[in-house]
């Protein structure tokens, strides 16, 4: 399907990048709670999207403990925008 991005088409990945579009960076546990997924699932998706250049991640500190902060890159934001537009076109065509 033209315009749909296979890297963020999976529901959890779409939720991940959509959630991150609301902030500049979010702490790993905060995102995990918003998505209601396990550490390992989130970690796997974050790694894949970091490798694709859609997310950036860095080690940091939150509430006195070491953690990972993640955020959308400009490429990730653009990919999300284009994917959602394509998804809406598909839905409109079906309807």
């Amino acid at each position, binding site marked *: 399907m033209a315009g749909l991005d296979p890297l963020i088409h999976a*529901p959890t990945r*779409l*939720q*991940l990048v*959509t*959630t991150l*579009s*609301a*902030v*500049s*960076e*979010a*702490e790993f*546990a*905060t*995102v995990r*709670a*918003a*998505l*209601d997924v396990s550490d390992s699932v989130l970690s796997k998706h974050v790694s894949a999207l970091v490798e694709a250049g859609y997310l950036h991640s860095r080690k940091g500190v*939150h*509430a006195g403990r070491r953690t990972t*902060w993640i*955020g959308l890159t400009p490429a990730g934001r653009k990919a999300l925008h284009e994917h*959602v537009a394509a*998804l*809406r076109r598909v*839905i409109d065509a*079906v*309807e």
Partner: protein
Amino acid sequence: MESRRDPLTAADDARRRLTAGLRLPTGFSPALATGVAVQVGAAAYGIAAQTATGVAVALAGVAVFLGVAALLLHRFSRINGVRVDGLASQVVLAAGARASVAYLGALAVGIVAAFGSRWWLVAVAAVAAGVGCALGVRRWWHDYRHDPAAHARGASPRVLAVLAVVACLGCAALLVLG
């Protein structure tokens, strides 16, 4: 029909779960208003004094404001587990149109008043600047909660730090050369 929108709805719901829990730290607006008021009052005094002491007072005002801003943004990040550059831009740069007008207008009034040694008016202008900026951030926060994706972006912490250094150097240069 609704089920076909599920991927987008689920994604929006996840984003809503994150943003619905975001809170400004307790005392955010009064602290920001105080920081801005101190900075404007110090700048007005410093510019009018045109002495080395004036430069020191103006720079101290900037330092107080930046310290308050950094503390507020750190507390926001600590209690929410997120960083929002749009908020940082609103706090440090008074990026909203109304906040900018309130800040620049009050600063101008404060400077003119300081040259005339009308210190009560300097105080009024400083408080007006603080209240204007705090209300501007509140307004932005309301808009952000309504549409977070459209308002999340802003100057990065690195850019804000560079701008703060440039502002301090510019302020010092103007006062020294003037």
